[in-house]
C-alpha cells in the first residue's frame, strides 16, 4: 500500500486515515507526528511511553486474555491499547508482574491508563485525519 503524506490533512483518503490510526496505535503520538502535529505528538509520545515504562518498572503486569476472568480480560484489552509498546514488552519478556511487590497495583494502574489514553489519542488522530479538528 503506497501511502502519500499530504500537506492538507483534509485531503486524506480512507486508507491513509486507517494507516494513521494504526501508526498511532503502534507508537503513541506517531499518528499526530505523521500528520505534522509535532507538539501534540511529542507530548503523547513522551507521556504515554513514560507511563508504560514506569508501569513495568513498578512491577505491574501485562494481563493475559482470560475470558473466564472478565476483569482480567478487560485489563488485557486496556493493556493492548499501548500497541507496539505492549508487543515489544511481551517479546522481551517484561510485564510478568510481581503480585507481592508493594508497587504492583501502581504498576498496573500506570499500564492500564497508558493503554486507555493511547486509544483516546488514536481517536483524536482519526478526527484530525478526517479534518474534524
Amino acid at each position: 500500500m503506497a501511502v502519500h503524506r499530504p500537506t492538507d490533512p483534509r485531503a486524506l483518503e480512507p486508507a491513509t486515515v486507517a494507516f494513521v490510526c494504526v501508526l498511532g496505535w503502534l507508537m503513541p503520538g506517531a499518528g499526530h507526528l505523521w500528520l505534522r502535529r509535532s507538539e501534540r505528538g511529542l507530548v503523547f509520545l513522551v507521556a504515554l511511553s513514560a507511563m508504560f515504562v514506569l508501569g513495568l518498572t513498578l512491577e505491574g503486569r501485562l494481563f493475559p486474555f482470560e475470558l473466564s476472568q472478565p476483569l482480567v480480560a478487560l485489563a488485557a484489552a486496556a493493556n493492548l491499547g499501548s500497541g507496539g509498546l505492549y508487543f515489544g514488552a511481551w517479546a522481551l519478556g517484561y510485564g510478568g508482574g510481581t503480585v507481592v511487590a508493594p508497587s504492583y497495583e501502581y504498576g498496573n494502574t500506570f499500564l492500564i491508563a497508558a493503554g486507555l489514553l493511547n486509544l483516546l489519542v488514536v481517536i483524536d488522530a482519526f478526527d484530525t485525519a478526517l479534518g474534524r479538528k
Partner: protein
Amino acid sequence: MQSHLLLLVVFAALVSAVFAALQREDPRDQVRLGLLLFASFVGAALVAGWLMFPFPLGAR
C-alpha cells in the same frame, strides 16, 4: 519508588499533560488546562485522604 505521594504526583502530571494536549488547541490553553487538571487530581486525592483519616485501617 515506594512513595505513594510521588507516584500520585507523577501519574497526575502525565495524565494531565495528555488530556490537556487532547482537549485544547492553543498552547497557552493547554498549559492552563493541564495545571488545572493536575491541581484537581492532587487536591482531590489529598481531600479523599483526609476524609478517610477517621476510619482506621484494620479496625475491629
